């Protein structure tokens, strides 16, 4: 109660602020009412967005056509040379493959796992409410914190392998040091981090499935599986759309976990993603031109894939 009162009072204080100078608000209304309203309400937010998102996008596009490198002037226009170089760059191709693998694993695993857990927790009781909180906790944590926890668990002499040795396993796997395994460990960590988000979205979807529909189907003789396929699943279409797009974007821009846990290794670039490669080229290699070309490709891919997937899934929502 005390909290709400405080908020209300705060709002009133904000609200009374314009009162002492009514003339300022009225003047633009007389001169050019629409322009004044635009300048007052829309412009501040648009300027910030324009300066720190739109302008940088245009700059990335322009830089990608140059050989810009602050430590190696002069900057020259090189046309599409950076993009041509990309197609033959093994580091880029590996980063592209790694990004696709991570994105696929995260999208499939977190969707399936999230749905299963949501169906498990879809009961009205305090126990399931508490468990929902358990699954949601990683969503609120920083991926740096999550990365450090999982690093402590999965590192060679870490908590998991200590436990495995205690159980008599003589040669436990190098979850993060084996070049064959590390990428999958990273994908697993991101899946774990995103699972709670999917659980909450699917639970909201499940609660929108009318109980009468389920019962009617049961009376008609539909078994558990048939009821799920024909009644529940079609009604979860919007939840699937939200989760899939969210997971695709999350997987595609994976950076923090790689920077904190593996730094792209073990070996050369076995866990490097496109985002990792963009940052490395720009801030370690100072090859701004080349990094911008990589960034442009990454943006085109993430935008193209999300728009196509969104279209397909939304059309599916309508037809079902």
């Amino acid at each position, binding site marked *: 109660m005390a909290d709400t009162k405080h908020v209300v009072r705060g709002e009133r204080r904000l*609200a009374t602020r314009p009162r002492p100078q009514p003339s300022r608000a009225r003047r633009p*209304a007389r001169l050019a009412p629409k322009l004044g309203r635009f300048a007052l309400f829309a412009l*501040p937010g648009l300027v910030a967005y324009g300066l720190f998102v739109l302008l940088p996008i245009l700059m990335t596009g322009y830089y990608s056509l140059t050989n810009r490198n602050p430590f190696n002037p002069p900057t020259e226009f090189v046309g599409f040379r950076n993009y041509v170089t990309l197609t033959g760059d093994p580091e880029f191709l590996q980063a592209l493959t790694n990004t696709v693998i991570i994105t696929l694993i995260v999208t499939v695993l977190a969707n399936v796992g999230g749905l299963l857990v949501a169906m498990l927790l879809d009961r009205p009781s305090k126990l399931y409410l508490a*468990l929902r909180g358990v699954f949601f906790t990683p969503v609120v944590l920083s991926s740096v914190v999550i990365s450090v*926890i999982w690093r402590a668990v999965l590192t060679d002499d870490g908590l998991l392998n200590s436990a495995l040795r205690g159980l008599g396993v003589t040669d436990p796997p190098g979850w993060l040091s084996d070049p064959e395994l590390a990428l999958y460990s990273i994908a697993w960590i991101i899946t774990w981090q995103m699972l709670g988000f999917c659980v909450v979205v699917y639970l909201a979807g499940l609660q929108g499935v009318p109980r009468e529909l389920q019962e009617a189907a049961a009376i008609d003789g539909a078994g558990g599986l048939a009821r799920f396929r024909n009644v529940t699943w079609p009604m979860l279409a919007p939840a699937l759309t939200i989760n899939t797009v969210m997971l695709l*974007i999350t997987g595609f821009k994976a950076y923090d976990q790689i920077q904190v846990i593996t730094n792209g290794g073990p070996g050369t670039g076995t866990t490097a993603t496109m985002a990792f490669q963009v940052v490395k080229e*720009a801030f370690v290699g100072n090859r701004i031109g080349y990094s911008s070309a990589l*960034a442009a490709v990454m*943006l085109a891919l993430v935008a193209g894939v999300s728009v196509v997937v969104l279209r397909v899934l939304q059309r599916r929502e309508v037809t079902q």
Partner: protein
Amino acid sequence: MTDARTHTWLRPLVAVFVGAVFFLPLYLMLVNVFKPGEEILPDPAGLPLPPTLENISGVFAREDNLFTFGLVNSIAVTALSITILTVLSAMLGHYLARSTRVFAKVLLVTLLCGLMIPIPVILSPMTSVLKAFDLMATLQGLVLVNVGYYVPFGVLLFMGFVKSVPRELEEAAELDGASKVRVFWQVVFPLLRPASASVLIFLGVWIWNDFLTPLIVLGPDSGTTVTVGVYRAIGQYESDFGDLFAFMFLATLPILIFYLALQKNFVKGLTGGAVKG
């Protein structure tokens, strides 16, 4: 229905088991915050009996003040960013939701495209823009970058909500002689409280947890946020999990409290809005 009754004991059992396995990594961090460093690897899962506050006090006693400086920066950056974001995106969202012109539609689509843009794609030119304004390696610069980057999300949330506020309310207030500004702050904004709470929660958590942006924008010399502090602390503690976990625990606590506190307000705001509307 029959199958629901036959397995009444199975569901809670499976649910608790799956939840426990899922929570295990977090449990390992929590118990080891309160365990002396040398006891962690021999017995990582054991309860910390008796618990020690050695690791926690160690974080505060650091000579480089990595935690305390980071905490102050994080609080300042997050509080400023989300306050400005709530105000700016409420106004912009209101403007775009009420405007019927093509121009406004184009603006909206341009803004929503921003939701898909990953930070690494714009990071390098973003620093060039900051340098041009002499704001690189400053907290103000980081706040401005946050505002620009997260404004589309705020607008998206507020727009959906503005549409549920009856236009007649605003027209009535205007007929009574209130200015546009006054109508917005005294009539519309209080009704948008649930949307404001959502924007504050989401963006508060995201901005507090941000890693790459503060790492690059603040740079190595001018201090860090607590989240970047966790990253900086890794190398120094190396295998001393106790100290590292305590650092992370303390870095997470403020935003977790903020989240839990506002979440309650969020529900209250929803019902409060309903009564008023």
